[in-house]
């Protein structure tokens, strides 16, 4: 378009430059794609390898090794074993189920508590003693700084006396606490973007403040809540530190299971790879299909 005022000679060099920059951009993109994908590719292919394949360093299925189900058999998830009773599969599914329940419940709880708090803080002014709105917001957000170690040992002792050690509820409470500041951060941003006139109109029409919140604000803020929920879900699913300290047998989550197998398996890579692959698969699916929400959640605080 801008070529109208340009000489012919200049045209060729810019097009050459354009091609150079294209090549540079795409090769950089390609390089980082390989860096991101290779470990995942490696894990999934290794789960189908046998000992000789591992030792020879074969990489490409069907070309330099034949995929076998050996790794997946070790957690009882292969076509041959799927119909049979398998204790290893029971074990795996129990951990999987624990992870699911704990992360979903904790995220839900955090989204409910966090959204209410964020809405209150974005609409009304409070005074609790010396604390005003900005102090209360800071109090909530400052929890993000708190390193988990500080809470871990007191919680160990407290949970022991409350009989909450090795229970799902214990982990759910801690995980909710862990993601709550992030949820409040995202949701505060969301609510600030909703015009107050909407609620004023609802109030004029005779709804209470909770009615206006439930019927008018919530439906509008729903995408933001989904974003906060999914981000929390990812964080809770991957949490290892508290789970390793506070659970032993009943309510162990998947990361703890993966970690406990890491040392003992030696060069038994196929079963470790299968276990890791099964542990990361749900999140890869989440990332592919709900990427929009994850990005929305993370971008919330970045742009004012």
């Amino acid at each position, binding site marked *: 378009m801008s070529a109208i005022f340009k000489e012919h000679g200049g045209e060729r060099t810019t097009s050459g430059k354009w091609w150079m920059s294209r090549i540079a951009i795409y090769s*950089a*993109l390609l390089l980082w794609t390989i860096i991101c994908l290779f*470990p995942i590719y*490696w*894990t999934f292919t290794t789960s189908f390898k046998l000992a000789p394949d591992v030792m020879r*360093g074969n990489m490409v299925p069907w070309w330099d090794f034949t995929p076998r189900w050996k790794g997946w058999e070790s957690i009882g998830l292969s076509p041959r074993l799927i119909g049979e009773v398998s204790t290893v599969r029971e074990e795996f599914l129990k951990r999987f189920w624990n992870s699911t329940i704990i992360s979903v419940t904790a995220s839900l709880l955090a989204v409910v508590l966090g959204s209410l*708090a964020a809405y*209150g803080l974005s*609409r*009304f002014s*409070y005074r*609790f003693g010396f604390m005003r709105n900005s102090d*209360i917001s800071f109090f*909530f957000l400052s929890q*993000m*700084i*708190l*390193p988990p*170690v*500080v*809470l*871990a*040992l*007191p919680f160990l*002792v*407290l949970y022991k*006396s*409350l*009989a909450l050690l090795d229970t799902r509820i214990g982990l759910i409470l801690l995980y909710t*606490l862990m993601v*709550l500041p992030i949820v*409040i951060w995202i949701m505060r941003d969301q609510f600030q973007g909703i015009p*107050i006139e909407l609620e*004023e109109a609802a109030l004029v029409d005779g709804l*209470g*403040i909770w009615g206006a*919140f439930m019927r008018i604000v919530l439906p509008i803020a729903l995408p933001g809540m989904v974003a906060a929920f999914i981000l929390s879900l*990812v964080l809770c699913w*991957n949490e*290892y530190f508290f789970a390793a300290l506070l659970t032993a047998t009943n309510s162990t989550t*998947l*990361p*703890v299971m*993966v*970690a406990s197998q*890491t040392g003992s398996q030696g*060069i038994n*890579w196929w079963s*470790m790879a299968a276990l*890791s692959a099964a*542990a990361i698969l749900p*999140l*890869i699916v989440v990332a592919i299909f709900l*990427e929009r929400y*994850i*990005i929305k959640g*993370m*971008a919330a605080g*970045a*742009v004012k």
Partner: protein
Amino acid sequence: MMIEGDLLHTVTADHISDRRKRIGKTLVWGTALFGLALALWQFAFETGRVANGFDSWRPVLYAYMLWATALCASQVIVNGEKGKRTLFVLPAALFVISLVVFPLLFALYISFNDWNLASPNGPQPNGLDNVREMWNDAFYWNALKNMVYYVLAVSVEYIIAFALALLLNSQIRGRKFFRVVFLLPLMLSPVAVSWMIGKSMLEVRFGPISRLLREIGIEPSFFGSPEIARFMIMAMDAWTFIPFMMIMLLAGLQALPSEVIEASKVDGATGWQSFREVIFPLMLPVSVTAIVIRIIFKLKLADIIINVTSGGPGGATDSVTSFIFREYRDRSNVGYGTLLAIVYLILIIIFITMLLKIVSRWMERPA
């Protein structure tokens, strides 16, 4: 920034009778006294003064939850419409206070005790012995020093993340595909990453990266020498967390006013000039947010270290969190471990406050 007064005005025509107020107050105090009595009873039972009690403190927890519910309900009963507003924030505040403030106070108490969970004696107050032990604990100071290195590594992560964000923001095909792919590492649990990369890809004999290095003619050893081991931990952590900064920066880039960049092009700025003079200064606030949040996450770094090197070789890769984790795992030394954690918390608070102060002063400077 503070907005005085409610943004959302409500007309409160409540008339709250004295009887209603009294009911509300009775509810709170009644449940509080009940919980307190239950706690005292349980304490007496544990110390052997009363013959029968509960197996655990769980009933006291239930009484506490009852009190919390009563407190929320009484807000509405006593204050009417104003209480309904308080009800938005109160549950979250109660939740955080009861799960953070009480345990922190408790942590402060146990950090001045000699308490080994494996020994039957229970907590033994030992004054400042723990502090003295910490002062002479070379491994703890070493872990703190490592944290400095780890935090400094954020700057490199920032540069890579910014470059990737610029790449994704340029005119490319298949942007959605690249965005999903670049996001993937963030989704994976650090524990899985420590096996996938740390334990198998970097394995000396059969790992693909070792193989590649041997092809080139370098004898691979990733966790033998302190510097390389630390670098490997940094690289793995960077691999998982670069997408996080990248997404924040990308959001910032996409929110930039396109007129400004167009204008700089019209003025004849080259790509590099328009980046240095226009894009980068405009991106400063977003960059600062991303870096600060990343540093906060970095200070919690532990999972990868625990699972890949458990601090080795010779504590060269230890972070404070992984060090305290082993202090508990290997020696069940709760008292000393908690003191270390509390000191770490204080250091973090000082560091982050200073960081925020510096940043806010620096940002106010006229550009």
